């Protein structure tokens, strides 16, 4: 069984949010619904080393959508089976079955399922499944001017780009086994950075 995955190069991303806008445009998403989101993680400050003061200010971007997890916690917990996994690993939602209980959005550590108040049901990134079926690329991948996004079979992406990095603020990948490969920005390698814009990174 194929396992489609996204690749994200954090070291190349400029944070322009073109992927975010391409996704909103393709899926006709209203305000508040952002199936692909770009987080800017910033932090650091001054620190004294002996008699001198140095700074460790950092900033990097993280483009995040549904990671079409190998063990999707949303699919497992959806009471209506509205969320399901296709043969190629894409996690999709059948909105005609959804009751809008929002439980999937509670449990997903990537904030992927989002409530659509107009329809009263959940929506999420579907990997542009219609494009995939036509042999095209997902809209976010094609839109990225920095070529920081790619997609393909998970193993092929690992072979192509090397082992994936676990960067802040992503959760422990063991929880859901996300189909995601990341090349970390040099500043993103710190496990617990002193983040100054936590309100942008963590959304309740």
């Amino acid at each position, binding site marked *: 069984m194929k396992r489609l995955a996204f690749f994200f190069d954090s070291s190349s991303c400029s944070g322009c949010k073109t992927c975010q806008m391409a996704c909103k445009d393709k899926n006709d998403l209203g305000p508040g619904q952002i199936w692909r989101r770009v987080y800017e993680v910033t932090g650091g400050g001054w620190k004294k080393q002996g008699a001198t003061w140095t700074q460790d200010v950092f900033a990097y971007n993280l483009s995040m959508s549904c990671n079409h997890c190998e063990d999707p916690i949303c699919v497992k917990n959806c*009471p209506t089976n509205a969320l399901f996994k296709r043969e190629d690993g894409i996690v999709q939602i059948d909105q005609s*079955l959804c009751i*809008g209980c929002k*439980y999937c959005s509670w449990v997903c*550590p*990537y904030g992927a399922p989002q409530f659509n108040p107009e329809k009263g049901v959940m929506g999420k990134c579907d990997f542009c499944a219609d494009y995939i079926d036509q042999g095209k690329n997902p809209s976010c991948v094609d839109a990225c001017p920095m070529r920081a996004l790619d997609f393909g079979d998970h193993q092929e992406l690992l072979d192509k780009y090397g082992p994936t990095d676990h960067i802040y603020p992503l959760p422990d990948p063991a929880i859901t086994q996300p189909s995601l490969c990341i090349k970390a920005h040099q500043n993103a390698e710190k496990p617990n950075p002193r983040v100054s814009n936590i309100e942008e990174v*963590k959304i309740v």
Partner: protein
Amino acid sequence: MSNRDWSLVFFTTLSQWSVGIILCLTWPVFVNHDSSLVFITEPNLANPVLLALILIAGATVSSFLHLGNPMNAPKALNNLSSSWLSREIFTIGIFSASLVFILLLGWGSDNPRFLRYLMALSSMCGLALLWTMIRIYVMPTIPAWNSWYTPVSFVSTALSLGLVSLLVLQANGLVNVAGHIIRSASIALATMLLIGTGSGFAYQSYLRRLDPGMDDLVFDSGVFYRLFLFRMALLIIALMMIVFAIPNASVLEGMTGPSWLYPLFGLILLQELIGRLLFYSAYFRTGV
């Protein structure tokens, strides 16, 4: 919290209250003599089982207010194989059905053994409902809920409200339970309130250590902390009231009138609602 989350506060509290009533009625039915079954067999609108049924029905209506698309609600049973939410809906159904059976088969029945089994069956359905509710919230991606406190608080809600309901029902003559059982129920209620107080403080300490690092989710100051302190004060007052009443049999059995039980009941219900509100307010997830 959004207004819609209030529906979950009421849904979980009312349904656990309903389970608590049945558990606390089943206890004297098994331990006590047959006269404690009078509440089932008399066709009375003030029947405690009917009260439990009304509570679970109210909880179900409240849960619908949380749904974005309630018309699809019957489909919530589609994923019994892996979704605890589906299983919860199922157990609500069987628990409610068991209450309807008790009411239909119990009224006018002269077979106490059969009624005992019905009550035991209903209690088991109630325990299954409690278990599924607990499993919904114990999730590895939600640190504030993925703790010992979730099962402790859910069971504590059911038993505290169930026990105080038993005292109120007895004082109003709606059940006929032996004095020693009422005394045991009072001691059990005091124990539950003590557990509620202790676990409340311990959970607050647990939340403080989690430190989600978000300005709008601070556990040791602001509205959250003030509500926590208010709830603890209510719990301690309720605990003192019941501890004072335990040595006094006439007060305990409502012989001096049930009036003191109403403020106690009000305090317990209010602190449970506030506790549940705090529980939902503590939500944050790992990751982004």
